[in-house]
């Protein structure tokens, strides 16, 4: 099981995705979370972080029904084959350079065809939600608690309850 996951017998068994789907998911994660380093070069996140996210995403999808699994299988296949039609590069998504993948995804998101934009966003939303709920990516958001599930910091002068009492 991936780092960060708490074992629970209420979770489904850890899925084993075929190598091709793992490679595609990893290529998407790399581009989504790519950033500029101190010298301005485009860099992918660490390999371990990509592996963690793909593993957690596979478990997430496995927690839904066959409808969900079938949908994401299709999404990853479409993302793989669409670059020629979106950015004019005759290569599958996994063969694009990191910069080309970033440009490809931005073109998808900005497409006037809502279905193309939706295709990308359907994959972007869960992967980013996983990425930004821990580690360095959570720090990037400026969230000032020690973890995403940690209670609010006490507010000076507000007494025992930070917001000055309950909503009821």
């Amino acid at each position, binding site marked *: 099981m991936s780092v960060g996951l*708490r074992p629970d017998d209420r979770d489904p068994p850890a899925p084993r995705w075929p190598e091709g789907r793992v490679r595609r998911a990893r290529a998407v994660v790399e581009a989504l979370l790519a950033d500029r380093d101190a010298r301005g070069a485009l860099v992918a996140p660490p390999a371990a972080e990509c592996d963690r996210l793909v593993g957690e995403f596979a478990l997430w*999808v496995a*927690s839904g029904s066959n409808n969900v699994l079938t949908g994401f299988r299709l999404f990853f296949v479409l993302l793989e084959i669409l670059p020629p039609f979106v950015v004019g590069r005759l290569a599958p998504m996994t063969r694009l350079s990191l910069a080309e993948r970033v440009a490809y995804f931005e073109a998808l998101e900005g497409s006037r065809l809502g279905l193309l934009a939706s295709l990308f966003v359907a994959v*972007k939303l869960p992967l980013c939600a996983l990425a930004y*709920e821990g580690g360095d990516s959570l720090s*990037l*958001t400026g969230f000032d608690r020690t973890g995403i599930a940690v209670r609010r910091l006490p507010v000076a002068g507000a007494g025992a309850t930070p917001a000055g009492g309950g*909503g*009821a």
Partner: protein
Amino acid sequence: MSAAGEIVHGRALPGGFDEGADVVVVGSGAGGAVVATLLAEAGLRVVVLEEGPYYRPEEIAGFRPTEAMRRMWREAGLLAAFGVGQTPLIGVTVGRNVGGSSVHTGGVCFRVPPAVHDEWARLHGLRELSERAFEDAYLDVERRLHVGEVPAADRSLSTKKFVEGASKLGIPMRPIRRNTQGCEGNGRCNFGCPKGAKMSVDLSYLPGAVGLGARVVSDALVERVLVERGRAVGVEGRLLGGPAGGRGARFRVRAPTVVAACGTLHTPLLLHASGVRSPHLGRHITLHPAVRLCALFDDEVRGWDGALQSVYSDHYAGDGITLVGVYTAVNVLASALPGAGPAHRQWVRQLPRLGVFGAMVHDEGGGAVRPSALGREGVLSYEMAARDLSRLRRAITVLGEIAFAAGASKVFPPIFGVPPASTLAELRALETAPLDPRRIECIAFHPLGSARMANDPRRGVTAADGSVYGLEGLYVADGSVLPTSIGVNSQEPIMAMATRIAWGLRDRRPRA
């Protein structure tokens, strides 16, 4: 099954079971928990069968948002309504756990607006659904849930900006009422309260039912209602999960009264699998399509500190739009910002300066749920009325106008691929620009109406007392019975409706 006084993890049972009860309730959410509790209080033997897992409040408190989604939301939180025609793809959030969606709401409690009650009573001929007829049920629900106004001190800075901008435009904002006790403003209600302050039904109702001897079993998927000589006599199904994750043992519960409370998306599937036939079954689904707009301010807003929802405005109710102060977990918010790679991360770094404003549309409906060939989950489709699409686009403009009035330097329209707008003119131009509706980022939290009440079986699936036309002994008590869209959050209306139905059942007091 197990000792009384505790909720049973179905997946941990050594085998199936076969037992009797006065009432079997399918589903433990806002409808099922209410019916079960009120009937247990009336002395009836009640069994509640919940398809989803049971997590204790202290477990939920520690879940990351994505853990909460994959463990406790239907379709692991990845459910969407397929848009038909000029319709956005709409993400739909529904709970699948002991406590149902009540565990995942923002805690907002509205009564059904008087105009909607009036429509039900006058136009639909359902006099039993008048505002007056609901009064006692509302009071009972509000007492048990500890419903009260959110104090102004609990508002986040994001919400304060929302109120400030609205005030400058002459749009009045009112405090929202919520079912919380000791809310400390953790700003992540939809993914479980870290404090356990939200009075969801697993905390406010079910413990009372269990204490009175009701059996609540999680991981128990009811597959069909048992029918003998034209009347419902119980249910059967199978236990889910277990250490091996395989198909579980079968169970059967015999009872003269069966209450389906599986929610708008699953109640019609259960009824259909049990032989109920109606042209209205699974149709007329309303969603309250909603949008949220992010606004960038010069100063830090840190909207995660404060009550998730604390104000609303019905200023545009005549246009079918309700404005609501909202927020969400920062990772979910980050995921919705535009771009990929460095461009996306640039916006993520601005998150402390982002306020979030929301709106939802009182829709005509146009949703349908059908069985899927791929498994037990249905397929939800939705055809948005042209009027509602216009309302949605209007709502985006209104939210942006409020944001700019509050001092925002940029707003992020919830339209995929559209860059942030820096001026009112840019924003307003979007409302009428040619646009594929599937580019609109749209979410929905309140699916309703798939087994709607009507005073005639030719117009609906259920009667005003919750009974299913054509199958004696079978009742429905969840959001599926609401005859129309209500335009406000549905938790309290569903609970009040379930209260009415339970009181009716109690007064008839069926016995095994």
